Protein backbone atom coordinates (compact mmCIF):
# COMPACT_ATOMS: atom_id res chain seq x y z
CA UNK A 1 0.00 0.00 0.00
CA UNK A 2 1.17 3.48 -0.78
CA UNK A 3 1.97 5.46 2.36
CA UNK A 4 0.01 8.70 2.35
CA UNK A 5 3.15 10.80 2.05
CA UNK A 6 4.46 8.91 -0.96
CA UNK A 7 3.67 10.24 -4.43
CA UNK A 8 0.95 8.83 -6.69
CA UNK A 9 1.67 6.91 -9.91
CA UNK A 10 2.47 10.13 -11.76
CA UNK A 11 4.89 11.20 -9.06
CA UNK A 12 2.57 13.79 -7.54
CA UNK A 13 2.54 14.95 -3.97
CA UNK A 14 -0.84 16.66 -4.14
CA UNK A 15 -0.47 19.23 -6.90
CA UNK A 16 3.35 19.14 -6.72
CA UNK A 17 5.93 16.90 -8.34
CA UNK A 18 5.45 15.11 -11.66
CA UNK A 19 7.79 14.89 -14.59
CA UNK A 20 8.63 17.91 -16.73
CA UNK A 21 11.64 16.85 -18.76
CA UNK A 22 12.77 16.59 -22.37
CA UNK A 23 11.40 13.55 -24.17
CA UNK A 24 14.95 12.15 -24.42
CA UNK A 25 14.91 11.45 -20.66
CA UNK A 26 11.52 9.78 -20.43
CA UNK A 27 12.77 6.30 -21.13
CA UNK A 28 15.53 6.58 -18.53
CA UNK A 29 13.07 7.80 -15.91
CA UNK A 30 10.71 4.94 -16.69
CA UNK A 31 13.60 2.49 -16.41
CA UNK A 32 14.73 4.02 -13.14
CA UNK A 33 11.24 3.85 -11.73
CA UNK A 34 10.94 0.17 -12.64
CA UNK A 35 14.39 -0.67 -11.30
CA UNK A 36 13.60 1.12 -8.06
CA UNK A 37 10.28 -0.69 -7.60
CA UNK A 38 12.02 -3.99 -8.25
CA UNK A 39 14.86 -3.24 -5.85
CA UNK A 40 12.43 -2.23 -3.11
CA UNK A 41 10.60 -5.49 -3.44
CA UNK A 42 13.86 -7.44 -3.42
CA UNK A 43 15.10 -8.35 0.06
CA UNK A 44 18.66 -8.77 -1.19
CA UNK A 45 18.80 -5.10 -2.20
CA UNK A 46 17.71 -4.09 1.29
CA UNK A 47 20.27 -6.37 2.93
CA UNK A 48 23.05 -5.13 0.71
CA UNK A 49 22.17 -1.51 1.39
CA UNK A 50 21.88 -2.10 5.14
CA UNK A 51 25.32 -3.68 5.16
CA UNK A 52 26.74 -0.66 3.33
CA UNK A 53 25.07 1.71 5.78
CA UNK A 54 26.62 -0.25 8.68
CA UNK A 55 30.12 -0.69 7.39
CA UNK A 56 30.69 2.22 4.99
CA UNK A 57 28.63 4.95 6.62
CA UNK A 58 28.98 3.75 10.22
CA UNK A 59 25.26 3.75 11.01
CA UNK A 60 23.42 4.19 13.20
CA UNK A 61 24.57 7.73 13.86
CA UNK A 62 24.10 8.79 17.48
CA UNK A 63 21.30 10.88 18.93
CA UNK A 64 23.15 13.29 21.15
CA UNK A 65 21.82 15.33 24.03
CA UNK A 66 23.23 18.85 23.69
CA UNK A 67 23.06 19.86 27.34
CA UNK A 68 24.92 23.15 27.33
CA UNK A 69 23.37 24.21 24.03
CA UNK A 70 19.96 23.37 25.54
CA UNK A 71 20.51 25.98 28.24
CA UNK A 72 21.01 28.62 25.56
CA UNK A 73 17.95 27.46 23.65
CA UNK A 74 15.61 27.10 26.61
CA UNK A 75 14.52 23.63 25.45
CA UNK A 76 15.86 20.11 25.64
CA UNK A 77 17.82 19.81 22.39
CA UNK A 78 18.72 16.45 20.88
CA UNK A 79 20.96 16.35 17.81
CA UNK A 80 20.73 13.62 15.21
CA UNK A 81 24.41 13.35 14.35
CA UNK A 82 24.56 12.93 10.57
CA UNK A 83 27.79 14.94 10.80
CA UNK A 84 29.34 11.71 12.10
CA UNK A 85 28.34 9.73 9.02
CA UNK A 86 31.25 8.83 6.72
CA UNK A 87 32.19 11.80 4.53
CA UNK A 88 30.58 14.16 7.04
CA UNK A 89 26.95 14.57 6.03
CA UNK A 90 23.69 12.73 5.44
CA UNK A 91 24.26 12.78 1.68
CA UNK A 92 26.01 9.39 1.70
CA UNK A 93 22.80 7.56 2.72
CA UNK A 94 21.36 8.53 -0.64
CA UNK A 95 24.40 8.09 -2.84
CA UNK A 96 25.18 4.54 -1.70
CA UNK A 97 21.59 3.54 -2.38
CA UNK A 98 21.49 5.18 -5.79
CA UNK A 99 24.88 3.91 -6.94
CA UNK A 100 24.00 0.40 -5.74
CA UNK A 101 20.86 0.69 -7.85
CA UNK A 102 22.81 2.07 -10.82
CA UNK A 103 25.26 -0.82 -10.60
CA UNK A 104 22.35 -3.28 -10.60
CA UNK A 105 20.93 -1.50 -13.66
CA UNK A 106 24.24 -2.04 -15.45
CA UNK A 107 25.09 1.67 -15.72
CA UNK A 108 28.72 2.33 -16.56
CA UNK A 109 29.13 5.90 -15.29
CA UNK A 110 27.61 8.19 -12.68
CA UNK A 111 27.23 11.96 -12.64
CA UNK A 112 26.09 14.35 -9.93
CA UNK A 113 25.59 18.00 -9.16
CA UNK A 114 26.78 19.47 -5.92
CA UNK A 115 26.32 22.70 -4.00
CA UNK A 116 28.23 22.48 -0.76
CA UNK A 117 30.30 19.67 -2.19
CA UNK A 118 28.98 17.15 0.34
CA UNK A 119 26.80 15.39 -2.20
CA UNK A 120 29.67 15.43 -4.68
CA UNK A 121 32.01 13.88 -2.12
CA UNK A 122 29.39 11.30 -1.17
CA UNK A 123 28.78 10.39 -4.82
CA UNK A 124 32.51 10.18 -5.51
CA UNK A 125 32.85 7.90 -2.48
CA UNK A 126 30.06 5.57 -3.60
CA UNK A 127 31.42 5.57 -7.16
CA UNK A 128 34.89 4.64 -5.90
CA UNK A 129 33.37 1.83 -3.83
CA UNK A 130 31.58 0.41 -6.87
CA UNK A 131 34.42 1.16 -9.27
CA UNK A 132 32.45 3.50 -11.53
CA UNK A 133 33.78 6.69 -13.14
CA UNK A 134 32.20 9.84 -11.70
CA UNK A 135 31.76 13.40 -12.96
CA UNK A 136 30.52 16.11 -10.58
CA UNK A 137 29.13 19.46 -11.77
CA UNK A 138 29.61 22.33 -9.37
CA UNK A 139 28.85 26.04 -9.70
CA UNK A 140 32.00 28.13 -10.04
CA UNK A 141 30.99 30.20 -7.00
CA UNK A 142 30.74 27.03 -4.93
CA UNK A 143 34.05 25.69 -6.26
CA UNK A 144 35.56 28.80 -4.68
CA UNK A 145 33.79 28.70 -1.33
CA UNK A 146 33.87 24.93 -0.77
CA UNK A 147 37.42 24.33 -1.91
CA UNK A 148 38.12 21.58 0.63
CA UNK A 149 35.39 19.43 -0.90
CA UNK A 150 36.69 20.00 -4.43
CA UNK A 151 40.04 18.58 -3.36
CA UNK A 152 38.33 15.66 -1.62
CA UNK A 153 36.30 14.78 -4.73
CA UNK A 154 39.40 14.84 -6.89
CA UNK A 155 41.31 12.67 -4.43
CA UNK A 156 38.41 10.22 -4.58
CA UNK A 157 38.94 9.96 -8.31
CA UNK A 158 36.04 12.13 -9.49
CA UNK A 159 36.26 14.78 -12.18
CA UNK A 160 34.90 18.13 -10.96
CA UNK A 161 33.49 20.39 -13.69
CA UNK A 162 32.99 24.06 -12.69
CA UNK A 163 29.80 25.64 -14.10
CA UNK A 164 29.98 29.34 -14.95
CA UNK A 165 26.43 29.84 -16.25
CA UNK A 166 23.65 31.77 -14.49
CA UNK A 167 24.33 32.25 -10.80
CA UNK A 168 27.18 29.70 -10.90
CA UNK A 169 25.66 27.82 -7.95
CA UNK A 170 23.62 24.68 -7.28
CA UNK A 171 20.77 25.51 -9.68
CA UNK A 172 23.18 25.86 -12.59
CA UNK A 173 25.10 22.73 -11.59
CA UNK A 174 21.82 20.77 -11.84
CA UNK A 175 21.15 22.24 -15.30
CA UNK A 176 24.58 21.12 -16.46
CA UNK A 177 24.20 17.65 -14.97
CA UNK A 178 20.84 17.32 -16.76
CA UNK A 179 22.51 18.35 -20.04
CA UNK A 180 25.14 15.67 -19.55
CA UNK A 181 22.43 13.14 -18.74
CA UNK A 182 20.41 13.96 -21.88
CA UNK A 183 23.54 13.30 -23.96
CA UNK A 184 24.67 10.14 -22.15
CA UNK A 185 21.44 8.77 -20.81
CA UNK A 186 21.93 5.24 -22.07
CA UNK A 187 24.97 4.32 -19.99
CA UNK A 188 24.90 6.97 -17.26
CA UNK A 189 22.98 7.26 -14.00
CA UNK A 190 22.37 10.76 -12.65
CA UNK A 191 22.69 10.66 -8.86
CA UNK A 192 20.49 13.59 -7.79
CA UNK A 193 21.48 14.87 -4.37
CA UNK A 194 18.21 16.02 -2.89
CA UNK A 195 14.47 15.37 -3.00
CA UNK A 196 14.18 17.40 -6.19
CA UNK A 197 14.01 16.57 -9.89
CA UNK A 198 11.51 14.60 -11.95
CA UNK A 199 9.66 11.58 -10.59
CA UNK A 200 10.90 9.12 -9.29
CA UNK A 201 13.84 11.06 -7.84
CA UNK A 202 12.06 12.89 -5.00
CA UNK A 203 10.64 9.60 -3.78
CA UNK A 204 13.87 7.61 -4.17
CA UNK A 205 15.96 10.18 -2.31
CA UNK A 206 13.42 10.62 0.48
CA UNK A 207 13.07 6.87 0.91
CA UNK A 208 16.85 6.43 1.09
CA UNK A 209 17.10 9.21 3.70
CA UNK A 210 14.26 7.89 5.85
CA UNK A 211 16.85 5.89 7.77
CA UNK A 212 17.61 9.17 9.58
CA UNK A 213 14.05 9.58 10.85
CA UNK A 214 13.53 5.93 11.69
CA UNK A 215 16.70 5.77 13.75
CA UNK A 216 16.01 9.11 15.42
CA UNK A 217 12.53 8.08 16.48
CA UNK A 218 13.72 4.85 18.10
CA UNK A 219 16.69 6.57 19.73
CA UNK A 220 14.47 9.33 21.12
CA UNK A 221 12.24 6.70 22.70
CA UNK A 222 15.24 5.04 24.26
CA UNK A 223 16.71 8.29 25.54
CA UNK A 224 13.58 10.10 26.73
CA UNK A 225 10.92 7.45 26.90
CA UNK A 226 8.79 9.30 24.38
CA UNK A 227 8.58 11.39 21.28
CA UNK A 228 10.04 14.85 20.74
CA UNK A 229 7.69 17.82 20.67
CA UNK A 230 9.36 19.30 17.64
CA UNK A 231 11.56 17.96 14.87
CA UNK A 232 13.64 20.60 13.11
CA UNK A 233 15.80 20.39 9.98
CA UNK A 234 17.30 22.77 7.44
CA UNK A 235 15.82 22.75 3.94
CA UNK A 236 17.79 23.34 0.76
CA UNK A 237 16.28 20.89 -1.68
CA UNK A 238 15.01 19.18 1.45
CA UNK A 239 16.55 15.69 1.63
CA UNK A 240 17.76 15.62 5.21
CA UNK A 241 14.49 17.21 6.32
CA UNK A 242 12.39 14.74 4.31
CA UNK A 243 14.32 11.79 5.71
CA UNK A 244 13.93 13.03 9.26
CA UNK A 245 10.29 14.11 8.89
CA UNK A 246 9.21 10.79 7.39
CA UNK A 247 10.20 9.06 10.63
CA UNK A 248 7.65 11.20 12.50
CA UNK A 249 5.06 11.86 9.82
CA UNK A 250 2.33 9.83 11.54
CA UNK A 251 3.07 11.11 15.04
CA UNK A 252 0.54 13.89 15.07
CA UNK A 253 1.78 15.35 18.34
CA UNK A 254 5.18 16.03 16.78
CA UNK A 255 5.55 19.40 15.08
CA UNK A 256 7.70 19.26 11.94
CA UNK A 257 9.66 22.44 11.21
CA UNK A 258 11.81 23.07 8.14
CA UNK A 259 14.22 25.99 8.19
CA UNK A 260 15.07 27.73 4.92
CA UNK A 261 17.84 30.18 4.16
CA UNK A 262 16.78 33.80 4.64
CA UNK A 263 20.19 34.90 3.33
CA UNK A 264 20.56 38.66 3.61
CA UNK A 265 16.94 38.88 4.81
CA UNK A 266 13.62 37.95 3.23
CA UNK A 267 13.42 41.32 1.49
CA UNK A 268 16.89 40.89 0.03
CA UNK A 269 18.54 37.92 -1.64
CA UNK A 270 17.69 34.59 -0.03
CA UNK A 271 16.83 30.93 -0.68
CA UNK A 272 13.45 30.71 1.05
CA UNK A 273 11.42 29.04 -1.70
CA UNK A 274 8.52 27.92 0.49
CA UNK A 275 8.30 31.10 2.55
CA UNK A 276 8.53 33.41 -0.46
CA UNK A 277 8.12 31.31 -3.60
CA UNK A 278 5.27 30.70 -6.04
CA UNK A 279 4.26 27.53 -7.90
CA UNK A 280 6.59 26.82 -10.78
CA UNK A 281 8.43 24.14 -12.69
CA UNK A 282 12.15 23.83 -12.06
CA UNK A 283 14.45 20.88 -12.71
CA UNK A 284 11.71 18.58 -13.83
CA UNK A 285 9.09 19.00 -11.12
CA UNK A 286 6.31 21.35 -10.14
CA UNK A 287 6.99 22.89 -6.76
CA UNK A 288 7.51 26.27 -5.13
CA UNK A 289 10.21 28.38 -6.74
CA UNK A 290 11.68 31.85 -6.56
CA UNK A 291 10.88 33.50 -9.88
CA UNK A 292 9.78 36.75 -11.47
CA UNK A 293 6.45 37.58 -13.15
CA UNK A 294 7.59 36.11 -16.47
CA UNK A 295 8.76 32.85 -14.93
CA UNK A 296 12.48 33.55 -15.01
CA UNK A 297 14.11 31.75 -12.09
CA UNK A 298 15.67 34.08 -9.52
CA UNK A 299 19.24 33.93 -8.31
CA UNK A 300 19.08 32.65 -4.75
CA UNK A 301 21.55 33.56 -2.05
CA UNK A 302 22.72 31.88 1.12
CA UNK A 303 26.02 31.86 2.96
CA UNK A 304 25.63 28.07 2.90
CA UNK A 305 26.10 26.66 -0.57
CA UNK A 306 23.75 23.75 0.21
CA UNK A 307 20.76 26.04 0.85
CA UNK A 308 21.57 28.44 -1.98
CA UNK A 309 18.83 27.16 -4.27
CA UNK A 310 15.68 28.87 -5.65
CA UNK A 311 13.55 25.71 -5.50
CA UNK A 312 12.56 22.98 -3.06
CA UNK A 313 11.45 19.38 -3.27
CA UNK A 314 7.76 18.84 -4.12
CA UNK A 315 7.21 16.83 -0.94
CA UNK A 316 7.95 19.94 1.13
CA UNK A 317 5.73 22.19 -0.98
CA UNK A 318 3.02 19.64 -0.31
CA UNK A 319 3.76 19.31 3.43
CA UNK A 320 3.54 23.11 3.64
CA UNK A 321 0.26 23.19 1.69
CA UNK A 322 -1.34 20.53 3.88
CA UNK A 323 -0.02 22.14 7.05
CA UNK A 324 1.66 18.95 8.26
CA UNK A 325 4.99 20.78 8.39
CA UNK A 326 5.79 24.41 9.03
CA UNK A 327 8.58 26.36 7.36
CA UNK A 328 10.64 29.08 8.97
CA UNK A 329 13.83 30.76 7.85
CA UNK A 330 17.12 31.98 9.31
CA UNK A 331 19.51 34.60 7.93
CA UNK A 332 23.22 34.25 7.12
CA UNK A 333 24.01 36.19 10.26
CA UNK A 334 21.84 34.02 12.50
CA UNK A 335 23.38 30.87 11.02
CA UNK A 336 26.91 32.16 11.70
CA UNK A 337 25.97 32.93 15.28
CA UNK A 338 24.48 29.45 15.76
CA UNK A 339 27.58 27.90 14.17
CA UNK A 340 29.74 29.64 16.78
CA UNK A 341 27.46 28.82 19.70
CA UNK A 342 27.33 25.09 18.97
CA UNK A 343 31.13 25.04 18.78
CA UNK A 344 31.51 26.84 22.08
CA UNK A 345 28.83 24.97 24.01
CA UNK A 346 29.26 21.44 22.66
CA UNK A 347 32.57 21.26 20.87
CA UNK A 348 30.82 20.54 17.58
CA UNK A 349 31.32 22.61 14.45
CA UNK A 350 28.18 22.14 12.36
CA UNK A 351 27.94 22.70 8.63
CA UNK A 352 26.43 26.11 7.81
CA UNK A 353 23.32 24.38 6.43
CA UNK A 354 22.13 22.79 9.72
CA UNK A 355 23.37 25.91 11.54
CA UNK A 356 20.17 27.44 10.12
CA UNK A 357 18.09 24.84 11.97
CA UNK A 358 20.06 25.55 15.15
CA UNK A 359 19.51 29.29 14.68
CA UNK A 360 15.76 28.73 14.66
CA UNK A 361 16.01 26.70 17.89
CA UNK A 362 18.08 29.45 19.52
CA UNK A 363 15.20 31.87 19.12
CA UNK A 364 13.78 30.21 22.22
CA UNK A 365 10.33 29.77 20.72
CA UNK A 366 10.39 26.03 21.16
CA UNK A 367 9.48 24.18 24.32
CA UNK A 368 9.93 20.67 25.59
CA UNK A 369 12.10 18.32 23.59
CA UNK A 370 13.42 19.46 20.21
CA UNK A 371 15.11 16.99 17.91
CA UNK A 372 17.34 18.74 15.38
CA UNK A 373 18.84 17.19 12.28
CA UNK A 374 22.53 17.99 12.40
CA UNK A 375 22.92 17.12 8.73
CA UNK A 376 26.66 17.69 8.39
CA UNK A 377 29.90 18.87 9.88
CA UNK A 378 31.47 22.27 9.43
CA UNK A 379 35.02 21.54 8.29
CA UNK A 380 34.13 22.60 4.75
CA UNK A 381 32.86 25.96 6.04
CA UNK A 382 35.70 27.00 8.30
CA UNK A 383 37.20 29.41 5.76
CA UNK A 384 33.81 30.98 4.95
CA UNK A 385 33.00 31.43 8.63
CA UNK A 386 36.42 32.84 9.44
CA UNK A 387 36.21 35.47 6.73
CA UNK A 388 32.58 36.33 7.61
CA UNK A 389 33.45 36.77 11.28
CA UNK A 390 36.49 38.90 10.35
CA UNK A 391 34.51 41.06 7.98
Amino acid at each position, binding site marked *: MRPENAPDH*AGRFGEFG*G*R*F*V*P*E*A*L*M*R*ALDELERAWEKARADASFGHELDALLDTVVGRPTPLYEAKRFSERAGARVLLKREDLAHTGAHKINNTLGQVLLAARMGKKRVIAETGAGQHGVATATAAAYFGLPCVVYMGATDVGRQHLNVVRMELLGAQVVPVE*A*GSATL*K*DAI*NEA*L*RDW*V*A*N*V*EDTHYVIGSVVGPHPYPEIVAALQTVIGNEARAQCHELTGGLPDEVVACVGGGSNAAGLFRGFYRDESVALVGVEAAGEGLNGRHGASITKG*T*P*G*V*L*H*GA*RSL*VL*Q*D*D*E*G*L*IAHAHSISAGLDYPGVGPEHAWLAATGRARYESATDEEALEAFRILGETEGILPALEPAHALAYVLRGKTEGTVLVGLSGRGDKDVATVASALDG
Partner: protein
Amino acid sequence: MTALLDHLETARSAGRKLLVPYLVAGIPDVAGFPRALETVAAVADAVEVGLPYSDPLMDGPVIASASERAIRSGVGPLSALELASTATTTCPRIAMTYYNPIHRVGEPEFCRVAAAAGFTGIIVPDIPVEESASLRSAAAEHDLAWVPLVAPTSSAERVKSIAATATGFIYAVSTLGVTGARTSLSERAAPVVAACRAASDLPVLVGIGVSTPEQAREASVSADGVVVGSAVVRHVLERGAEAAAEWLASVRTALDA
Protein backbone atom coordinates in the same frame (compact mmCIF):
# COMPACT_ATOMS: atom_id res chain seq x y z
CA MET B 1 -6.03 22.18 -39.98
CA THR B 2 -3.85 24.80 -38.27
CA ALA B 3 -2.61 27.74 -40.32
CA LEU B 4 0.96 26.56 -39.80
CA LEU B 5 0.27 23.07 -41.08
CA ASP B 6 -1.62 24.48 -44.05
CA HIS B 7 1.36 26.66 -44.93
CA LEU B 8 3.85 23.80 -44.58
CA GLU B 9 1.68 21.36 -46.54
CA THR B 10 1.44 23.81 -49.43
CA ALA B 11 5.21 23.91 -49.67
CA ARG B 12 5.60 20.18 -49.13
CA SER B 13 3.10 19.27 -51.83
CA ALA B 14 5.07 21.43 -54.26
CA GLY B 15 8.04 19.12 -53.60
CA ARG B 16 9.93 21.64 -51.51
CA LYS B 17 12.01 20.68 -48.47
CA LEU B 18 11.24 22.85 -45.48
CA LEU B 19 13.80 25.15 -43.89
CA VAL B 20 13.06 26.43 -40.39
CA PRO B 21 15.79 28.57 -38.84
CA TYR B 22 15.85 29.34 -35.13
CA LEU B 23 16.65 32.68 -33.51
CA VAL B 24 16.81 33.70 -29.87
CA ALA B 25 14.58 36.73 -29.34
CA GLY B 26 16.66 39.77 -28.48
CA ILE B 27 19.74 39.00 -30.58
CA PRO B 28 21.89 40.58 -31.86
CA ASP B 29 20.34 43.20 -29.56
CA VAL B 30 16.87 44.45 -28.65
CA ALA B 31 16.64 47.05 -31.39
CA GLY B 32 18.15 44.79 -34.04
CA PHE B 33 16.05 41.70 -33.40
CA PRO B 34 12.89 42.53 -35.40
CA ARG B 35 15.04 43.29 -38.45
CA ALA B 36 17.08 40.10 -37.92
CA LEU B 37 13.86 38.13 -37.77
CA GLU B 38 12.60 39.69 -41.04
CA THR B 39 15.92 39.04 -42.76
CA VAL B 40 16.04 35.40 -41.78
CA ALA B 41 12.32 34.92 -42.47
CA ALA B 42 12.88 35.99 -46.07
CA VAL B 43 14.72 32.72 -46.76
CA ALA B 44 12.64 30.47 -44.48
CA ASP B 45 9.46 28.42 -44.58
CA ALA B 46 8.83 29.25 -40.94
CA VAL B 47 10.93 30.76 -38.17
CA GLU B 48 11.33 29.35 -34.69
CA VAL B 49 11.73 32.12 -32.11
CA GLY B 50 13.37 31.04 -28.86
CA LEU B 51 12.04 32.94 -25.86
CA PRO B 52 14.96 33.75 -23.55
CA TYR B 53 14.93 31.67 -20.39
CA SER B 54 17.07 31.57 -17.27
CA ASP B 55 17.53 27.79 -17.23
CA PRO B 56 17.61 26.52 -20.82
CA LEU B 57 18.52 22.93 -20.08
CA MET B 58 18.06 21.58 -23.60
CA ASP B 59 20.46 24.19 -24.97
CA GLY B 60 24.19 24.06 -25.54
CA PRO B 61 26.61 26.98 -25.02
CA VAL B 62 25.74 29.03 -28.14
CA ILE B 63 22.00 29.31 -27.51
CA ALA B 64 22.30 29.32 -23.71
CA SER B 65 24.68 32.27 -23.73
CA ALA B 66 22.59 34.11 -26.35
CA SER B 67 19.61 33.59 -24.08
CA GLU B 68 21.49 34.89 -21.05
CA ARG B 69 22.60 37.92 -23.02
CA ALA B 70 19.03 38.67 -24.14
CA ILE B 71 17.79 38.47 -20.55
CA ARG B 72 20.54 40.85 -19.41
CA SER B 73 19.32 43.33 -22.01
CA GLY B 74 15.82 43.11 -20.56
CA VAL B 75 14.12 40.61 -22.89
CA GLY B 76 12.13 38.02 -20.95
CA PRO B 77 9.88 35.29 -22.33
CA LEU B 78 6.78 37.47 -22.42
CA SER B 79 8.36 40.67 -23.65
CA ALA B 80 10.06 38.55 -26.33
CA LEU B 81 6.65 37.73 -27.81
CA GLU B 82 5.86 41.41 -28.06
CA LEU B 83 9.25 42.23 -29.52
CA ALA B 84 8.78 39.56 -32.20
CA SER B 85 5.37 40.98 -33.07
CA THR B 86 7.00 44.20 -34.29
CA ALA B 87 8.71 42.37 -37.18
CA THR B 88 6.99 42.68 -40.55
CA THR B 89 6.86 39.33 -42.28
CA THR B 90 4.29 36.89 -43.58
CA CYS B 91 6.49 33.95 -42.67
CA PRO B 92 4.91 31.86 -39.87
CA ARG B 93 6.54 32.28 -36.47
CA ILE B 94 6.70 29.49 -33.93
CA ALA B 95 7.54 30.21 -30.30
CA MET B 96 9.99 27.86 -28.60
CA THR B 97 9.80 28.17 -24.83
CA TYR B 98 10.55 26.17 -21.74
CA TYR B 99 7.45 25.34 -19.76
CA ASN B 100 7.89 27.46 -16.65
CA PRO B 101 7.08 30.85 -18.24
CA ILE B 102 3.87 29.31 -19.61
CA HIS B 103 3.03 27.87 -16.21
CA ARG B 104 3.76 31.18 -14.56
CA VAL B 105 1.38 33.29 -16.63
CA GLY B 106 -1.12 30.49 -17.10
CA GLU B 107 -1.55 28.26 -20.13
CA PRO B 108 -4.60 30.03 -21.67
CA GLU B 109 -3.11 33.48 -21.06
CA PHE B 110 0.22 32.52 -22.59
CA CYS B 111 -1.47 31.14 -25.69
CA ARG B 112 -3.64 34.22 -25.99
CA VAL B 113 -0.62 36.55 -25.83
CA ALA B 114 1.41 34.42 -28.26
CA ALA B 115 -1.43 34.31 -30.80
CA ALA B 116 -2.04 38.05 -30.41
CA ALA B 117 1.68 38.61 -31.13
CA GLY B 118 1.24 36.79 -34.45
CA PHE B 119 2.65 33.38 -33.55
CA THR B 120 1.20 30.32 -35.25
CA GLY B 121 2.69 27.53 -33.19
CA ILE B 122 4.53 26.56 -30.02
CA ILE B 123 7.35 24.18 -29.16
CA VAL B 124 7.90 23.29 -25.51
CA PRO B 125 10.95 21.03 -25.11
CA ASP B 126 10.50 20.13 -21.46
CA ILE B 127 6.92 18.91 -21.25
CA PRO B 128 6.24 15.25 -22.02
CA VAL B 129 3.04 14.13 -23.70
CA GLU B 130 1.66 12.93 -20.34
CA GLU B 131 1.65 16.48 -18.96
CA SER B 132 0.71 18.52 -22.01
CA ALA B 133 -3.03 17.90 -22.53
CA SER B 134 -4.33 21.16 -21.04
CA LEU B 135 -1.67 23.22 -22.79
CA ARG B 136 -2.46 21.56 -26.11
CA SER B 137 -6.12 22.41 -25.83
CA ALA B 138 -5.31 26.02 -24.86
CA ALA B 139 -3.04 26.20 -27.92
CA ALA B 140 -5.75 24.77 -30.17
CA GLU B 141 -8.20 27.40 -28.98
CA HIS B 142 -5.88 30.10 -30.29
CA ASP B 143 -4.97 28.31 -33.51
CA LEU B 144 -1.45 27.75 -32.28
CA ALA B 145 -0.06 24.59 -33.83
CA TRP B 146 1.46 22.07 -31.43
CA VAL B 147 4.92 20.88 -32.42
CA PRO B 148 6.03 17.95 -30.25
CA LEU B 149 9.52 16.50 -30.04
CA VAL B 150 10.40 12.87 -30.63
CA ALA B 151 13.78 11.60 -29.34
CA PRO B 152 16.06 8.73 -30.37
CA THR B 153 15.14 7.09 -27.05
CA SER B 154 11.36 7.28 -27.64
CA SER B 155 9.76 3.84 -27.88
CA ALA B 156 7.51 3.10 -30.86
CA GLU B 157 4.57 3.32 -28.50
CA ARG B 158 5.59 6.76 -27.29
CA VAL B 159 6.25 7.99 -30.83
CA LYS B 160 2.70 6.98 -31.66
CA SER B 161 1.13 8.88 -28.78
CA ILE B 162 3.37 11.91 -29.30
CA ALA B 163 2.78 12.05 -33.06
CA ALA B 164 -0.96 11.92 -32.46
CA THR B 165 -0.75 15.27 -30.66
CA ALA B 166 1.06 17.12 -33.45
CA THR B 167 -0.90 19.79 -35.31
CA GLY B 168 2.00 21.61 -37.02
CA PHE B 169 4.91 19.31 -37.67
CA ILE B 170 6.87 16.70 -35.75
CA TYR B 171 10.25 17.75 -34.48
CA ALA B 172 12.56 14.74 -34.81
CA VAL B 173 15.50 15.17 -32.47
CA SER B 174 18.45 13.81 -34.43
CA THR B 175 20.73 13.00 -31.55
CA LEU B 176 20.95 12.62 -27.80
CA GLY B 177 22.23 15.84 -26.34
CA VAL B 178 21.69 19.57 -26.24
CA THR B 179 21.51 22.06 -29.10
CA GLY B 180 24.80 22.88 -30.78
CA ALA B 181 26.88 22.17 -33.85
CA ARG B 182 28.06 18.62 -34.58
CA THR B 183 30.70 17.58 -37.07
CA SER B 184 28.39 15.07 -38.70
CA LEU B 185 24.73 14.21 -38.75
CA SER B 186 23.96 11.55 -36.18
CA GLU B 187 23.23 8.12 -37.61
CA ARG B 188 20.27 8.12 -35.28
CA ALA B 189 18.46 10.80 -37.28
CA ALA B 190 17.12 8.49 -40.00
CA PRO B 191 15.57 5.92 -37.63
CA VAL B 192 13.83 8.68 -35.65
CA VAL B 193 12.38 10.09 -38.87
CA ALA B 194 11.26 6.63 -39.94
CA ALA B 195 9.53 6.10 -36.60
CA CYS B 196 7.69 9.42 -36.96
CA ARG B 197 6.67 8.58 -40.52
CA ALA B 198 5.28 5.25 -39.40
CA ALA B 199 3.13 7.08 -36.85
CA SER B 200 1.94 10.16 -38.75
CA ASP B 201 1.40 11.84 -42.11
CA LEU B 202 2.40 15.26 -40.79
CA PRO B 203 5.65 16.89 -41.91
CA VAL B 204 8.70 15.61 -40.04
CA LEU B 205 11.61 18.01 -39.54
CA VAL B 206 15.00 17.06 -38.17
CA GLY B 207 16.58 19.34 -35.59
CA ILE B 208 19.32 19.59 -32.95
CA GLY B 209 22.82 19.45 -34.36
CA VAL B 210 22.06 20.27 -38.00
CA SER B 211 24.76 22.84 -38.68
CA THR B 212 25.96 22.62 -42.30
CA PRO B 213 24.27 22.63 -45.72
CA GLU B 214 25.54 19.06 -46.25
CA GLN B 215 23.96 17.85 -43.01
CA ALA B 216 20.69 19.57 -43.94
CA ARG B 217 20.73 17.85 -47.33
CA GLU B 218 21.50 14.48 -45.74
CA ALA B 219 18.75 14.86 -43.14
CA SER B 220 16.17 15.89 -45.70
CA VAL B 221 16.65 12.74 -47.76
CA SER B 222 14.23 11.03 -45.40
CA ALA B 223 12.74 14.04 -43.60
CA ASP B 224 10.59 16.88 -44.91
CA GLY B 225 13.11 19.45 -43.84
CA VAL B 226 15.28 20.77 -41.06
CA VAL B 227 15.37 23.11 -38.09
CA VAL B 228 18.70 24.92 -37.87
CA GLY B 229 19.45 26.60 -34.55
CA SER B 230 22.89 27.15 -33.08
CA ALA B 231 24.52 27.70 -36.49
CA VAL B 232 22.08 30.52 -37.29
CA VAL B 233 22.42 32.11 -33.86
CA ARG B 234 26.20 32.02 -34.15
CA HIS B 235 26.10 33.64 -37.60
CA VAL B 236 23.81 36.43 -36.36
CA LEU B 237 26.00 37.11 -33.33
CA GLU B 238 29.32 36.94 -35.14
CA ARG B 239 28.54 38.39 -38.56
CA GLY B 240 25.05 39.82 -38.45
CA ALA B 241 21.62 38.88 -39.79
CA GLU B 242 22.48 39.50 -43.45
CA ALA B 243 25.34 37.03 -43.25
CA ALA B 244 23.07 34.55 -41.49
CA ALA B 245 20.52 34.88 -44.30
CA GLU B 246 23.23 34.38 -46.90
CA TRP B 247 24.38 31.25 -45.14
CA LEU B 248 20.77 30.04 -44.93
CA ALA B 249 20.49 30.60 -48.67
CA SER B 250 23.34 28.09 -49.09
CA VAL B 251 21.40 25.63 -46.95
CA ARG B 252 18.37 26.29 -49.18
CA THR B 253 20.45 25.52 -52.25
CA ALA B 254 21.64 22.26 -50.71
CA LEU B 255 18.04 21.30 -49.87
CA ASP B 256 16.92 22.04 -53.44
CA ALA B 257 19.82 20.20 -55.08
